[in-house]
């Protein structure tokens, strides 16, 4: 059973928005993941997500060009838990202001990575959350273009129905 902790801040949304507007990027809380579904906003604690991470495997990480021990969550399960079902598409915002909208998430192969080689990942190593494919088949890991749909430094995820 998931032990994830999340807090709904609907009542304090206005206050939070105002605080974010005046805060510098570094002051933003990198220990949280924001889930957006229309007007509904859910803020998940990264610490809770790290504790919830129950999938562990070792694979060749193309961007590291070496084997790495990965720990994380099945992304599809997280989506179902918080959105009720897997949205058709998701709009991601990353800490480096990278934005992308992608579909095809109803697939247990996608892992939301929280740890790498036993350590929680941070902004400094493309964290604090990263989406990777556990099994990338026979795609050539030497060609990074094959992994363009991996998402790093995830700050918020918005459901696009």
């Amino acid at each position: 059973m998931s032990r994830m902790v999340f807090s709904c801040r609907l009542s304090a949304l206005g206050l939070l928005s105002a605080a974010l507007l005046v805060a510098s990027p570094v002051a933003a809380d990198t220990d949280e993941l924001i889930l957006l579904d229309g007007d509904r906003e859910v803020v998940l604690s990264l610490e809770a997500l790290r504790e919830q991470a129950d999938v562990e495997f070792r694979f060749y990480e193309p961007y590291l060009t070496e084997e790495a021990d990965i720990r994380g969550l099945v992304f599809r399960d997280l989506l179902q838990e918080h959105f009720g079902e897997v949205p058709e598409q998701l709009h991601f915002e990353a800490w480096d202001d990278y934005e992308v909208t992608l579909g095809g998430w109803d697939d247990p192969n996608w892992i939301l990575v929280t740890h790498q080689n036993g350590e929680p990942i941070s902004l400094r190593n493309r964290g604090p959350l990263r989406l990777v494919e556990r099994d990338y088949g026979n795609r050539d890991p030497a060609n990074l273009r094959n992994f363009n749909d991996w998402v790093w430094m995830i700050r918020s995820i918005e459901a696009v129905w």
Partner: protein
Amino acid sequence: MVKPHRPWRRHVHWLSLSLMSFVALMLLIAYQTRWVYPEIHAYFSQSGNLTGQQLATRARGYLQEGLDQLLSSPDDQETRQRAYFQMTLAYSLFDIGLYRREYDCTGPSLAAMGELMDRLDNGSTVEAYHLRESLLEPMRCLTQIEMHQLDRRSEVTAEFVEQTRRHQGQVLAGSLVIFVLGLGFWSMHEMQRRRAARSARESLEWMTRALRDPLTGVGNRSAMQDDVRTSRGGSLGLLLVDIDYFKQYNDSLGHPDGDRLLRRLVQLIERALGNEASLYRMGGDEFAALFECRSDKALGDICRHLVEALRDAALPHPAHPHSDSVTFSVGGGEIQGWVR
């Protein structure tokens, strides 16, 4: 056991090969359109995704932004925090296995950036030489990576274009070969078809010739038998005409004149009986005419009409023992309700 001759099988064979060639050509074109072009598009269209812009370029941008902030207010805490954040982003995009492995400057640059980030984090003073070593050197390294990666991308693109050009050349050549083969097979089919048609036409001509009397151009005995056999029933009138003393005619005037007399007789009979009747040479100087006949009276009328026409012609016969002109023996009969 002799297998039945089936010429159509040979035609179908060429036709099938031809159709198969054109189908193969269509499949090749479909393959090019459906799979190859999207692959090329996917290869070159990289904007807006994770590696659409070089990671090194993005990292350098964050470093420049951090440097700008530190140069503007090096002692301001908030500015230092923002610079730290920019450097963290730069570090994460710089710390790529490919860069570490292929560019020697990557490791030292990341170490230098790490030191500066530690200084910013623990509140230590940041001097100009710190910035030079921890930001300018990594920027140079990133620029070097960018340039090299751009060169490599150009090489890969050129190679890809060359491969694509070669591939398209092969496809074009293959398409032409298949097209020419298809045309060749079609030509073979067409030749076979024309040959078969010519053969059928010739057979028909030979069959027609076999039923014709070459001297007079009318049907022969076989033709008459066929016509009687294939008639749809009803009453047929039959007239038989024989030239009297024809041997004497030939003996006195010669066979060429005898032949001319036969042809003249045919003309006379045809003129007398009209287009309704079919005329046949039964052999020698014997002729027969077949026509639709509804009654005995009609048969008698036609018979009399023919006799009169022949008499009126008064063809000279110098060797006739009883007359100065050619005489004929004419007989008629009716074939009632003839059914095959």
